[in-house]
């Protein structure tokens, strides 16, 4: 085994690799060890084809030519955090040195693919840094007593790429004094020279800039709520960067506005239940009146309407889909198997049944008879909408500060047909019904998922969301 010690720069790798190639060292025998911290290289590897100057060359074998494509890709990939990159570079280098001409063109070669993947990662990271650095303006007094402006940003790239990415800002903002801080390193331009220093935590950067409110105004106005597409937004602007992007604090209200707009366009008004809902805003009166409701056909098969229950001043309202078999018989929500899952999850984070208001988007049990059993059957969107009058009445009495929807049916009752739990669960929305609004899976969905891995993942998300609700509730009380 040969230990090759380098300092995490391509330049350092190049010197060591040249020596090893000259010794004809087998890639499998070389272990690459980085002796100092990363941060990319200071000296570039020269642009040309020749890697052949080999000042310490022991023999003729050290003189070989490496294609430009390899050097250009590896120089960039060297900024990646992946510790396996050095052995990959060396393996490719040895193959090239041993005569694999044209290897770099073979887009289906596993090593070439691996190198391309690393290079693309770093390039994307660099591009995102160019895009997502947000300067904040600060004023300071210099030695001469003049007030001068500086622009400071904190950004966290995925890889230590600051040295690669900083020259872009020098070209773009030559007549500005600026500093970019990252956890690994910092760069400062004083209108004369670009210098690099140590990394800094996020709170080392200024916490605000008056222009950010103006940019948020623009951001909100340029958005088209009819074309909501969070998937693309998240793919292009990953959430890990949001903390330093001032405009993203406006996203929840923008999304909520979208759902409202979609809901108002799709909602059949008024809801069919309206003719059965009494004027009185008293939970006992409402519960009683709901027994007579015939706003949709579901009531025909059900034993009774299962109205919500819980304190009339509850801050948190949990809304499920509809009562199940056991609820239908007992006349109380969430007392069956799904209720058990929910109660267990609530208990784990210190939420008690008697502290929350529990109800369903649809008040009657919809089912299909199978022999002696009654199998749950999903209510249609029309049925959900028809029942909405009862939910509205409950909201008017309880006036919850927080609503947690369990499952798509509940969320769609509020936000319209477009809502998808898989896409939007766990996000907090500010809504007309409660300032804190979230949707998560329905506990019965967790019981029904056939795929073990999917179930485990959904359960984890469900627990996370219940915990988030518990935290938000505790914060309200504090």
């Amino acid at each position, binding site marked *: 085994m040969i230990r090759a010690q380098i300092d995490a720069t391509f330049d350092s790798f190049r010197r060591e690799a040249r020596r090893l190639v000259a010794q004809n060292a087998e890639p499998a025998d070389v272990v690459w060890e980085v002796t100092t911290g990363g941060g990319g290289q200071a000296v570039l590897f020269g642009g040309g084809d020749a890697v052949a100057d080999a000042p310490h060359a022991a023999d003729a074998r050290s003189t070989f030519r490496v294609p430009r494509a390899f050097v250009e890709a590896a120089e960039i990939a060297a900024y990646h955090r992946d510790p396996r990159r050095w052995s990959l570079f060396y393996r490719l280098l040895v193959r090239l040195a041993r005569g694999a001409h*044209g*290897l770099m*063109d*073979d*887009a*289906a*070669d*596993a090593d070439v*693919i691996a190198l391309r993947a690393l290079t693309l990662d770093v390039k994307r990271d660099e*591009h995102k840094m*160019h*895009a*997502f*650095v*947000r*300067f*904040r*303006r600060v004023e300071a007094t210099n030695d001469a007593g003049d007030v001068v402006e500086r*622009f400071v*940003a904190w950004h966290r790239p995925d890889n230590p790429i600051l040295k690669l990415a900083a020259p*872009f*800002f020098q*070209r*773009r*903002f*030559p*007549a*500005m004094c600026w500093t970019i801080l990252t956890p690994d390193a910092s760069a400062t331009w004083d209108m004369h020279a670009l210098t690099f220093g140590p990394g800094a935590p996020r709170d080392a950067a200024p916490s605000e*800039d008056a*222009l950010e*409110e*103006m*940019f948020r*105004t*623009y*951001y*909100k*106005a*340029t*958005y*088209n*709520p*009819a*074309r*909501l*597409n*969070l*998937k*693309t*937004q998240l*793919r*292009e*602007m990953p959430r890990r960067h949001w903390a330093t*992007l001032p*405009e993203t604090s406006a*996203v929840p209200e*923008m*999304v909520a506005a*979208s759902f409202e707009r979609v809901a108002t366009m799709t909602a059949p008004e008024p809801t069919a239940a309206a003719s059965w809902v009494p004027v009185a805003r008293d939970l006992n009166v409402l519960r009683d009146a709901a027994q007579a409701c015939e706003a949709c056909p579901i009531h025909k098969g059900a034993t009774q309407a299962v109205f919500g229950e819980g304190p009339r001043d509850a801050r948190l309202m949990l809304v499920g889909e509809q009562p199940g078999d056991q609820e239908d018989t007992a006349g109380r929500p969430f007392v069956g198997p799904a209720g058990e899952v929910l109660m267990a999850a609530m208990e784990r984070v210190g939420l008690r049944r008697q502290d929350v208001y529990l109800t369903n988007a649809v008040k009657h049990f919809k089912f299909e008879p199978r022999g002696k059993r009654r199998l749950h059957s999903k209510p249609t969107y029309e049925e959900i909408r028809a029942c909405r009058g009862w939910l509205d009445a409950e909201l008017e009495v309880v006036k919850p500060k927080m609503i947690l929807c369990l499952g798509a049916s509940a969320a769609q009752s509020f936000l319209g047909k477009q809502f998808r739990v898989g896409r939007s669960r766990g996000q907090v929305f500010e809504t007309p019904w409660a300032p804190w609004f979230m949707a998560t899976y329905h506990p019965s969905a967790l019981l029904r998922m056939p795929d073990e891995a999917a179930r485990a993942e959904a359960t984890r998300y469900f627990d996370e969301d219940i915990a988030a609700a518990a935290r938000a509730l505790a914060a309200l009380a504090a």
Partner: protein
Amino acid sequence: MEIKRKLAVLADAAKYDASCASSGSRRASQEGGIGNTEGMGICHSYTPDGRCVSLLKILFTNYCVYDCQYCVNRISSDVERARFTPEEVVDLTLDFYRRNYIEGLFLSSGVLKSPDYTMEQLTRVAKLLRVDHKFGGYIHLKSAPGVSRELLAEAGLYADRLSVNAELPTEPDLVKLAPEKTTVAINSSMGIIHDAIEEHGKRYAPAGQTTQMIIGATPTTDDAILATSSRLYTSHGLRRVYYSAYSPIPKADGRLPAKSPPLVREHRLYEADWLVRFYGFTADELTTKEAPNLSLDIDPKLAWALRHRELFPTDVNVAPRELLLRVPGLGVRNVDRIVAARRHRVLTMDDLVRLRVTLKRAAPFLVAAGAGGTAAAARLLDALSLEKRVRPPVQLGLFEAQAQAVSGEL
């Protein structure tokens, strides 16, 4: 009116313009100034509709003397009106640019008094930025049709990109809905810009000219729309034609449809446009006499391939590049990698997987070395379920369509 309110009103009014590109221009920063462009655009942010924020895209004013029926800013509409001063636009652009929020400015406007008067205002903004503030960032100016040759000649000296909207696909559409605009005036403005670009080279609107068409406001079919685009690309050297699905506006005129066309139609047009510009298709290959509209269910490349079964399956190891480009599921980059890699090895299906070819879509049209072979692919291709097999499992969501339109990979 305070500046923040103006920004809210005039950014809202500008958001229906689909273009936000900041690419295609190279400009180094000037001594003592700020801003440059390096060819590739940068998306500094993304709004929840999945669209990128690259430029400060605003109207100079939404006051307008025209009465284009599809436009929310038409004179007969009662929207809130606002107007920037040139200095206000300059300050906003520089303030945003210095904080790295944007790549530059996309300035459009309602028509004040006359097209010439309006263009003078926009040009003044661009000149203040370029000359007084040594601004090197991206500037896109939108001209109304009918602006004088002199004014357009000046505007292009400061702007990276100029655009004149085609507005609607055909002359009868214009007559019906945009009484003040004519194909003649629009073409003449595009012609003036095209001539100036040819004459001055990179010193005049180096990122070229683009245009935008509203689709679905009239019954005009896709074949006519694509024919118009084709004509614009070839006769005026346009860089890009943008398609914008008509969206119903408040208190619309009876001549307009009450509903917007499906967004997926806009998406299919972008796909078709992409096929014409990068995949070697001609516009008239993508529709037929019997079906003058693009299919909403399947993309135009797949639709074409299904009409030309006799050409498939084709062997990735020998097929010419031109034919590979026509294989559903193979993008330009994939094709180039295949062509490079097959000089070094005989490609198998596994190799294609490593090259990230979407075999689910491409397999019925391809043969590679090893397992399967021609017979298997032919069986796939002949299977009655072919259309279903290669169709996306769910119909393309409207919300995803826009993003894919931008990436353009088919």
